[in-house]
């Protein structure tokens, strides 16, 4: 019987080619998207699962009274805490920011590279965490001046030579330090802790290696720059330890600033435990939920299609069902037959989906900027959910259609009393409405995301972005002649005719601040004002003019003021937000009032008009501009003309004055664009999802109209004989479907509005949602639906009525 049913199912599919193509194709499209997104979801969920001791490992966090969290901790706490609390088995401190610099082999004139994924880590790094070591001994990392390299990095510096035992020179803010290579490691793609090179933290115990950066000393509790991971004895209550740790913090000399220690489970380092979990994470669980939702919605559309098309076939099947029942078939045996057919369709859909995944993988990977493959589905428990859902869905839809089709009464069907598409038509309409509601909501989402993206890209941030070239400053070779070379470099640069303006600075618009600190007051300050955060930007006197940032009060720095040593200077500029944060109404007032920065008295000489120093995803912070001749960045405004020639000119000078440093540059506007990569990715994903949803929904609509038209052939024939025009007939057939799309739009509007409103709330600078976006989405959906329906309707309307009536 099974064989018989299978054979029959194949034949049915082959006989109704369009129907089968639409049905299987729709399922395949839906399943393919589902599988691709499942890869991503699974990959995200697999993060850090190779860490063997994740279960009792915690990351230490700071939480302030405003409930904001940050993971940077002073280096001195972990050793003190371990000594005092037996619940702490071990700790590992690491950082990934302060050691950035230029790395070079310690031989003659080996090539130098700027390394940004470099940092200090505790001596037990390779014992505390489970990173596989390819070469070397984990214990050797306890020694100072030791560097371990990633496999790729080892090859970059040493090629095929044996790296272990070789030396590398690192030039950064800690001066020029020689490190010995102790091993080569590998970091899995699903690790949040990532390094190209790790330096032994023990190195910083030697004051000579600090190069005057006393804030980095390993015992100090004054400056927050390290992440601290703790391994606790099993059964420890983290909340209890948090209280003890905070008490320790308050006891050891810290004035009570309201900051407390929190412990974040390592298992939730990448994805939060829930949407309410506010600890900072590397991944984004909200994003993951949205993607999961989209993938399930698209799968749902595909299944609805399947149910719709299959039950619409009822008309064709009814006769067969009648005959079989009279021939003695029980309902159960008919259900079995249709179930086999359903499973075959689902199976074929799945196989084609696998092919689609194979072909779409590169495109998907480029949008997601990841290297994913179907194997990633198996990397976490998400595959169980995925395959369970697929199986349940196919069984459910298959069983439903089987039940719906097998229920006909033979007398009714055999006497052709079944005229319209039958009893399931209300369900069918509901499904079409749902499909289009999902599609319309996705279209609205897509349009709004792109509007917001465009807004971010085009909003005036108060800074000249065009033609601004930013060159990273030198790190290597900072000897006694360095300052002179820096001055000479800038002088030579200013002589180029294509250099319209230039500046040296510690930061640049679109970059982060030099640092963020508190402790600013004025005589009229209220209590608690000293905890307000202010962002520091180190600039020279050319910075404001080079970026065409205006002053609203006072004056800019003078050249001689930028040369005053850090400790001796007392003149600063503020932005308007900082003036307001200090409690002044009028920018001019601040010019005549002395300002305190902890114990230092500062004089505000001017007020800078507010501009968005960070990207537009952040609000404008109170900013303090501090005069220094910084060589961190050289900002150059180029004249129009051949950009590549201009850059070549700058590079020649740079190499001449700063040998041993790689020449690295970027354009300010491109850098801003890069910061919106996540929004762009969102946009691309939503576009793909909505196009996909609309295609599948239209496939279903196409199939449905085909059947509606077939079932109404006689009616159409009669109407034409009675004098209906082609337009009349097309209208007759399209009206019902357009009504459904209209209802779908009414459902989609509030849902999309609510969801997008929530999404936009994360942006301090955002578009207003305008009504025409909704109208546009509805129009797009209607037009596409109309084209889909129209083709069939017109064909039916054009057909010869005599022929149709005769065949009845």
């Amino acid at each position, binding site marked *: *019987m099974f064989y*018989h049913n299978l054979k*029959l199912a194949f*034949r*049915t599919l082959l*006989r109704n080619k369009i129907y089968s193509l639409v049905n299987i194709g729709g399922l395949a499209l839906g399943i393919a998207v589902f599988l691709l997104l499942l890869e991503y979801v699974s990959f995200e969920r697999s993060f850090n699962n190779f860490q063997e001791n994740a279960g009792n490992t915690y990351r230490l966090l700071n939480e302030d009274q405003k409930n904001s969290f940050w993971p940077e901790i002073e280096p001195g706490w972990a050793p003190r805490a371990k000594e005092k609390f037996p619940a702490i088995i071990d700790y590992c401190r690491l950082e990934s920011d302060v050691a950035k610099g230029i790395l070079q082999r310690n031989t003659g004139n080996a090539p130098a590279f700027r390394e940004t994924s470099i940092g200090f880590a505790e001596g037990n790094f390779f014992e505390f965490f489970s990173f596989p070591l390819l070469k070397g001994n984990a214990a050797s990392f306890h020694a100072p001046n030791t560097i371990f390299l990633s496999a790729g990095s080892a090859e970059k510096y040493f090629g095929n030579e044996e790296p272990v035992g070789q030396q590398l020179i690192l030039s950064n803010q800690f001066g020029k330090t020689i490190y010995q290579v102790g091993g080569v490691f590998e970091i899995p793609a699903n690790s949040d802790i990532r390094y190209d090179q790790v330096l032994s933290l023990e190195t910083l115990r030697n004051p000579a290696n600090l190069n005057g950066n006393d804030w980095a000393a390993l015992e100090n509790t004054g400056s927050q720059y390290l992440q601290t991971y703790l391994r606790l004895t099993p059964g420890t209550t983290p909340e209890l330890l948090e209280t003890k740790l905070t008490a320790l913090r308050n006891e050891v000399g810290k004035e009570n600033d309201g900051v407390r220690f929190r412990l974040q489970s390592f298992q939730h380092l990448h994805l939060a435990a829930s949407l309410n979990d506010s600890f900072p994470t590397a991944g984004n669980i909200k994003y993951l939920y949205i993607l999961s939702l989209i993938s399930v919605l698209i799968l749902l559309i595909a299944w609805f299609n399947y149910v719709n098309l299959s039950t619409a076939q009822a008309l064709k099947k009814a*006769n*067969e069902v*009648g*005959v*079989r029942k*009279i*021939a*003695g*078939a*029980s309902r159960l*045996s008919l259900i079995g037959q249709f179930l086999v057919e359903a499973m075959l369709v689902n199976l074929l859909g799945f196989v084609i989906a696998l092919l689609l995944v194979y072909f779409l993988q590169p495109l998907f990977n480029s949008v997601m900027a990841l290297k994913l493959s179907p194997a990633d589905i198996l990397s976490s428990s998400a595959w169980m959910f995925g395959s369970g859902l697929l199986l349940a869905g196919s069984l459910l839809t298959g069983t439903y259609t089987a039940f719906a089709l097998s229920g006909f009464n*033979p*007398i009714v069907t*055999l*006497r052709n009393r079944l005229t319209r598409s039958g009893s399931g038509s209300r369900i069918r309409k509901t499904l079409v409405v749902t499909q289009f509601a999902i599609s319309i909501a996705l279209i609205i989402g897509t349009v709004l995301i792109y509007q917001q993206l465009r807004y971010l890209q085009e909003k005036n941030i108060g800074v000249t972005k065009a033609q601004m070239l930013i060159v990273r400053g030198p790190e290597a070779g900072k000897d006694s002649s360095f300052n002179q070379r820096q001055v000479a470099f800038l002088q030579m640069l200013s002589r180029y005719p294509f250099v319209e303006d230039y500046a040296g600075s510690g930061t640049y618009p679109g970059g982060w601040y030099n640092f963020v600190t508190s402790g600013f007051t004025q005589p009229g300050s209220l209590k608690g004002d000293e905890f307000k955060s202010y962002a520091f930007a180190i600039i020279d006197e050319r910075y404001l003019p080079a970026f065409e940032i205006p002053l609203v009060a006072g004056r800019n720095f003078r050249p001689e003021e930028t040369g005053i040593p850090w400790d001796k200077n007392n003149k600063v500029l503020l932005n308007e937000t900082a003036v307001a944060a200090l409690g002044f109404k009028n920018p001019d007032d601040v010019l005549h009032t002395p300002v305190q920065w902890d114990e230092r008295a500062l004089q505000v000489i001017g007020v800078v008009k507010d501009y968005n120093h960070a990207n537009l995803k952040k609000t404008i912070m109170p900013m303090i501009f501090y005069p220094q001749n910084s060589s961190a960045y050289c900002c150059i405004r180029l004249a129009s003309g051949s950009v590549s020639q201009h850059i070549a000119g700058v590079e020649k000078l740079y190499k001449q004055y700063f040998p041993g440093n790689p020449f690295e540059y970027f354009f300010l506007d491109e850098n801003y664009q890069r910061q919106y990569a996540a929004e762009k990715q969102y946009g691309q994903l939503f576009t793909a999802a909505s196009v996909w949803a609309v295609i599948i929904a239209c496939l279903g609509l196409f199939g449905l109209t085909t059947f509606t038209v077939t079932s109404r052939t006689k009616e159409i024939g009669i109407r034409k004989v009675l004098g209906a025009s082609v337009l009349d007939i097309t209208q007759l057939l399209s009206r019902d479907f357009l009504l459904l799309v209209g209802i779908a739009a009414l459902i989609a509007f509030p849902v999309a509005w609510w969801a997008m409103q929530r999404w936009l709330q994360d942006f301090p600078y955002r578009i207003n949602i305008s009504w025409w976006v909704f109208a546009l989405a509805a129009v797009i959906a209607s037009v596409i639906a109309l084209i889909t329906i129209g083709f069939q309707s017109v064909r039916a309307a054009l057909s010869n009525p005599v022929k149709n009536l005769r065949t009845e």
Partner: protein
Amino acid sequence: MITLEHISKWVTTAGLRTFLLKDINLTIKEGEFVSIMGPSGSGKSTLLNVIGMLDDADEGKYDFMGNQVHSMKEKQRSQLYKQYIGFVFQAYHLIDELTVYENIETPLLYQDTKSTERKAMVGDMLDRFQMVGKKDLFPTQLSGGQQQLVGIARALISSPKLILADEPTGNLNSRQGEEIMELFKKLNEEDGVTIIQVTHSEKNAAYGNRIIHLLDGRIEHPR
């Protein structure tokens, strides 16, 4: 074989009863070849459906080979007709996706007949109807007459005692119609199969040995 006593069937529209069958009393003995005639809407097909147990009457008693059909449940009734009755339709009602062979085989599949036995039975039937050469064709590849032959073969495959035919020649030309009627006559005379057919044609009705005239749901008795 069949005894109908006071069989009535009606539909109620807006409180008014319209009788499809009214007080039908009819006895058909085994081996009879009965033709039911009457104008359109006189209740011929309804009567046939009631006899075939596809439809039930609203009133009256129906005895089929000693079984009280009117008091049986749906399931028992379908058991009964599966065993004893074969249906032949005006529109053939073959399954388009199945070959001639498979169409004929279908009832056997639902009776759980063994595969070897099925083969033999379908083979015999094909021989008998001289359709061996056409066994792998699909219904659409056959003429109307041939399709009806397949329809009859399918009705006969489970060796029914009774064949119910609803205008079996209605869609056929006169030559094809004659062939089918000859076949019915032969089945009736040689195999002793009871046949009840609905027909419009006096000529076809004459093949049977008894004619029942229906008018407005009543049997018209010859005056």
